[in-house]
């Protein structure tokens, strides 16, 4: 009973707060403190939803989600193995960590001109930018997680006859899973931020392009529609990835 109570509270509280926020927004717009274009009132934005759907909102959602999925999965698929290797190889780690930190510190948006030069317009530059945003944090988190596995885990594994590839699949991978999942949550959020920015400058479609397009047409009400959709999808993506942290065999990493 208590946990279902807790769940309903966890839904009720943010919904209440959001309604209060919309009311405050409505009040602020009603007083005309700003011109309507600078603060489109909520009702106007609500009416804009239908118009934006007519302009291809759903297609833009699919396009942006596709780019994020490809870039993010490429980053995980490459970042985790590289992190495993660096975690196990101290020399390689010493050699590359400063470089990886260097690239991690570069805003992926700085790559936009090169992304366009190298990949043109469309999916590929956006995928590249998302990859650049996600891969370095994934590598660093995986490397640290591998390097921190207590030595006793491998001793125990050998005591019980595990060897070779089994040490990887039965010790290393389950041992780093909680930290890698946390890194995936963080970088998925980062990727979603980056796709919008990437599409604003290098796109012809996608939610980021729609934001830019609304602005260019002086339709800030439609811009807000896109902003709301972007935010809601970001929350949904995080909710989805939180499910990974609920897998019973990784719970220990969050509860100890």
């Amino acid at each position, binding site marked *: 009973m208590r946990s279902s109570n807790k769940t309903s509270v966890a839904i009720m509280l943010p919904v209440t707060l959001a309604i209060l926020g919309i009311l405050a927004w409505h009040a602020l717009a009603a007083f005309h403190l700003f011109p309507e274009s600078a603060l489109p009132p909520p009702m106007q934005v609500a009416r804009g939803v239908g118009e934006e759907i007519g302009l291809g909102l759903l297609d833009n959602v699919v396009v942006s989600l596709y780019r994020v999925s490809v870039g993010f999965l490429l980053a995980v698929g490459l970042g985790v193995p590289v992190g495993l290797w660096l975690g196990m190889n101290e020399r390689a780690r010493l050699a590359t960590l400063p470089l990886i930190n260097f690239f991690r510190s570069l805003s992926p948006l700085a790559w936009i001109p090169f992304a366009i030069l190298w990949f043109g317009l469309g999916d590929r530059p956006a995928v590249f930018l998302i990859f650049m945003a996600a891969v370095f944090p994934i590598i660093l988190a995986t490397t640290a997680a591998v390097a921190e596995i*207590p030595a*006793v*885990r491998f*001793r*125990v594994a050998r*005591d*019980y*006859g595990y060897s070779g590839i089994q040490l990887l699949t039965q*010790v290393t991978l*389950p*041992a780093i*899973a909680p930290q890698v999942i946390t890194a995936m949550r963080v970088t998925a959020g980062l990727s979603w931020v980056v796709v919008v920015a990437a599409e604003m400058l290098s796109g012809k479609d996608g939610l980021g392009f729609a934001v830019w397009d609304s602005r260019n047409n002086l339709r800030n009400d439609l811009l807000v529609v896109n902003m709301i959709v972007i935010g809601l999808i970001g929350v949904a993506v995080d909710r989805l990835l939180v499910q990974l942290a609920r897998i*019973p*065999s*990784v*719970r*220990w*990493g969050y*509860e*100890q």
Partner: protein
Amino acid sequence: MSSRLALDIQGVWRSFGAVDVFQDLSLEVGAGEFVAIVGPSGCGKTTLLNLISGYDKPDAGQVLRTGRMRMIYQQGGLFPWRTAGQNVAMGLRDVKDAAERQRRLDEMLRMVGLEGFADHYPHQLSGGMRQRVELARALAGDTDILLMDEPFSALDYLTRLRMRRELALMLDQKPCTVVLVTHDIEEAAQLADRVVVLSERPARIRYERCLGIPRPRDLTSQEVVEAVHAILAEMGIENAARADDRPLELASRRGVKENDR
């Protein structure tokens, strides 16, 4: 090596840099014998276990062992991503028949009183329950030599006393050779057939004490108290003469307390 010996440590030398840990140390452990190794901290007890288990190699001399050996670590030995049942099942990996493996798994869990906890993860168990899972895993399958590195030191006092009792009862059902490294002299005297006291580095065997009474033993039983007193006296911590002119138990208990202070 005689067939009656499970472990034969012959003239072992080991040093780390300038630190000589062992110079010509020898120790024999008979098959089925329970040997406890005590000594001042840093004297090389864990190094000795590492040499016995083969994790570390001596600079000179040799360590002969027979049979399957398993080790229980102070803590962190359980895989946190595996349930209690899955952890214990690690000890049964070479049992090929699935039904037989399950039967023996259930038997081990029953033996440590964790039948209802097979699906619990280690972080959902108390410290005492976790060490019982470790024991079940180590004794599952056919273990000949059990090495224990201060297995109960992370537990609270009463849990520690209970675990000693459970270990004794388990060894009754699944007998094997045991080498227990501990700094807890009471634990050594309550459990071991023979307590080996090591000196400061380079460690040599300073004193040995055999206890003949069956396990599980009461902590306050005459022979255990006498052994504790003798070991403490030998280490120069307790007054050797005191035992003669006062009731033995009182003298020893007080001596232990003074040591703790």
